[in-house]
């Protein structure tokens, strides 16, 4: 008897003619997640992906829990197209569920099978009731739902469904540039974008020597964690040299506006880089009202420098909700390492929470913005960070 993992992918099956494109991408990402693991075959049919495997199914399910686009997984047994064989398989499967309420839910894509779905339900249900006196039927809210899928190559039986990560297959939604600071929020914003299929590239603003080599390493480590969710085990990270801009801004006549001016410079650099690298959106970890640069007024003034959509997946999240996700995805412990980042070294005493665009434009008039942006871009380096570990 073969073990089969049935992978359900819900949302992408809604897509029209693109559907097989999405499915193929999901299969590619699944193959990548299972690289080096032992399984026989991955195939797709009837809105499902089937992974035939051996006794290592638990490890495979564990690996699939990190793949976006999978809604649920079920461990199924496959039998011959024969009611007796199906009954024996049902008996074994229901042994550990012998004292629950249940129903049988048969599907019959194979219309050549002599019994209809309803008939299968009734016959298998009755058979199980006769064999397990502790079992009772509840068609509305059963504790156990025994699924039977009758298909051309055999019948599949399963009763347990393990939730997957949900979302869309990584890489199906175009490229976005994530402003990655090294704090708690931006990696979570990156994760949520990856979840919707965005090909995420990170952009970090490095203010060495005001921030250290360790803070740079920290951002690389965060990128490495996110790379585990890209479906391909790697992610690009751009590191922009931001020191000169920081120095210039530090001399501003409007110290209260420093954060606003800094964020505007970051968005300008990000926009230029996005155009160059054909990214279609910027992504930030802004959560409304969390800090001075995240008030509606600040977002408005900061956003004014770009024409790209700025995705802010965390906009409605409370800090604790963000932290919960950060813990779940494994970025939290790295994010809280106490290294300086560019936002903490140059924070003014009283950052403006309600900056006015006219005032900001006046403050910027003293700088040669284009040159500053070009210089920072020229010093921007690109790393490809992989989630595989190498020792020397």
């Amino acid at each position, binding site marked *: 008897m073969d073990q089969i993992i049935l992978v359900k992918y819900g949302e992408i099956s809604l897509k029209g003619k693109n559907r097989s494109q999405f499915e193929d991408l999901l299969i590619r990402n699944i193959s990548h997640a299972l690289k080096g693991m032992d399984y026989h075959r991955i195939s797709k049919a009837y809105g499902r992906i089937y992974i035939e495997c051996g006794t290592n199914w638990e490890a495979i399910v564990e690996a699939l829990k990190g793949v976006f686009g999978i809604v649920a997984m079920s461990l199924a047994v496959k039998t011959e197209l024969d009611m007796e064989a199906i009954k024996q398989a049902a008996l074994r499967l229901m042994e550990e569920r012998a004292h629950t309420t249940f129903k049988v839910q048969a599907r019959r894509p194979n219309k050549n099978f002599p019994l209809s779905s309803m008939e299968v339900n009734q016959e298998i249900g009755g058979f199980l009731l006769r064999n397990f006196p502790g079992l009772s039927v509840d068609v509305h809210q059963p504790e156990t739902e025994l699924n039977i899928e009758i298909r051309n190559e055999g019948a599949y039986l399963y009763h347990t469904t393990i939730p997957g990560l949900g979302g869309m297959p990584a890489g199906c939604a175009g490229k976005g540039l994530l402003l990655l600071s090294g704090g708690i929020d931006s990696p979570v914003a990156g994760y949520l974008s990856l979840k919707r299929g965005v090909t995420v590239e990170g952009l970090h603003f490095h203010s060495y*020597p005001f921030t250290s*080599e360790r803070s740079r390493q920290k951002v690389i480590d965060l990128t490495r964690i996110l790379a585990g969710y890209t479906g391909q085990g790697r992610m690009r990270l751009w590191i922009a040299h931001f020191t000169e801009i920081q*120095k210039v801004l530090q*001399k501003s006549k409007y110290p209260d506006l420093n954060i606003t001016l800094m964020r505007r410079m970051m968005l300008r650099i990000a926009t230029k880089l996005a155009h160059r690298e054909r990214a279609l959106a910027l992504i930030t970890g802004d959560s409304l009202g969390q800090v001075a640069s995240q008030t509606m007024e600040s977002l408005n003034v900061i956003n004014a420098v770009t024409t790209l959509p700025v995705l802010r997946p965390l906009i409605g999240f409370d800090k604790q909700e963000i932290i919960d996700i950060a813990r779940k995805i494994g970025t939290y412990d790295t994010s809280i390492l106490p290294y300086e980042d560019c936002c*903490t070294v140059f924070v003014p005493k009283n950052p403006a929470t309600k900056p006015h665009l006219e005032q900001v434009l006046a403050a910027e008039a003293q700088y040669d913005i284009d040159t500053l942006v070009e210089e920072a871009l020229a010093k921007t380096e690109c790393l490809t960070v992989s989630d595989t570990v190498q020792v020397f």
Partner: protein
Amino acid sequence: MEVYLDHSATTPVDPEVVAAMEPYWHLHYGNPSSPHLLGVEAESALAQCRRFLAQVLKANNPNEICFTSGGTESNNLAILGYARAQYKPGHIITTAIEHPSVLNPISYLSANCGWRVTHLPVDSSGKIDPAFLARTISPETSLISIMLVNNEIGVIQDMAEISRVIAAANQGRRQKIAFHVDACQAFGTVPIDISRLKIDMLSISGHKIFGPKGIGLLYVRTGIQLQPLVFGGGQEGGLRSGTENVPAIVGLAKAAQLAVTGFEEHAAVLAELRSHLLSRLLQIPGSFCNSPPDGAPHIVSVRFEGIRAEVLVHYLEQKGVYLSVGAACSSHKQRASHVLQAIGLSPEQAGTTVRIGLSRKLTLEQIEYACDMIAASVAEVRQIYG
């Protein structure tokens, strides 16, 4: 030019030490416990190192040397090992400026094992008051642990006076108070006389004296009972099981030999480097020295008003000058070092403190260059922050 000024954090391994260790990785690689020739080779090297280090420390007996994985383990073994060998919890006296590897086992004992602890306060130079120590000693006091040279500011405790106080307290006591000294920062730069100072346990670390990391020793005077922390095959007289790290022990012995031969010349070199360094640094406006004038010759703690220590450190590393921040602090919680706090610095002052760790191998030219770079960086950062 590269000028490494963080010798209190760690030192590069001396090439002579590397050479001494080399054959013990792949030629004389036997397990000292093995009965065959290779084992005997390793065992005799081990015995030779033990004898040599006992001689350096003027210990009565080579068996008083217990090799460990380093200063931290030595301090843990001294404190936990001693406390666990007592039939009931007692009183430990230590100082407010000890290394965490002393403070943390002690706070473990006080939190979990019923020990009472006194942390002796220090004055603005970092020194404890021996008279205060005398008043603190009670009939329950069974262990006193005091570092010889502090790792952050370099203050040297008045061990002669401290030793007299403890000896006086021990007069007529049936159960003597044990005296442990953390000498990890002192060994090689400050003279240590175990017998005159009546030290019962002394911690030494290899990588602070141009030896390898992962090796250290605890001197344990004969008669002092310790419970092991690591159980196993009974190596190191049962005090520290595990196959001996022979190459590292050879390295430790060689490094100790290099440190003590020419001790006087080394001291003179360090004194000159230190005085030159200080005279240059204190010319920088808004500079202050946290180290006492009579401190260890190799540790200088200074601060520059308004300059965050991390920023200065990163500025200097670009210019090939490596030094250390004086206080652990993060962007979110300004947590000043307990040592700088104990000598009365404010969190702001602690946050601007850098530590310079000198060594006998530095030259005046290097110090000159480092001072030029420090002065230039301080000026540059001040200019940026306006």
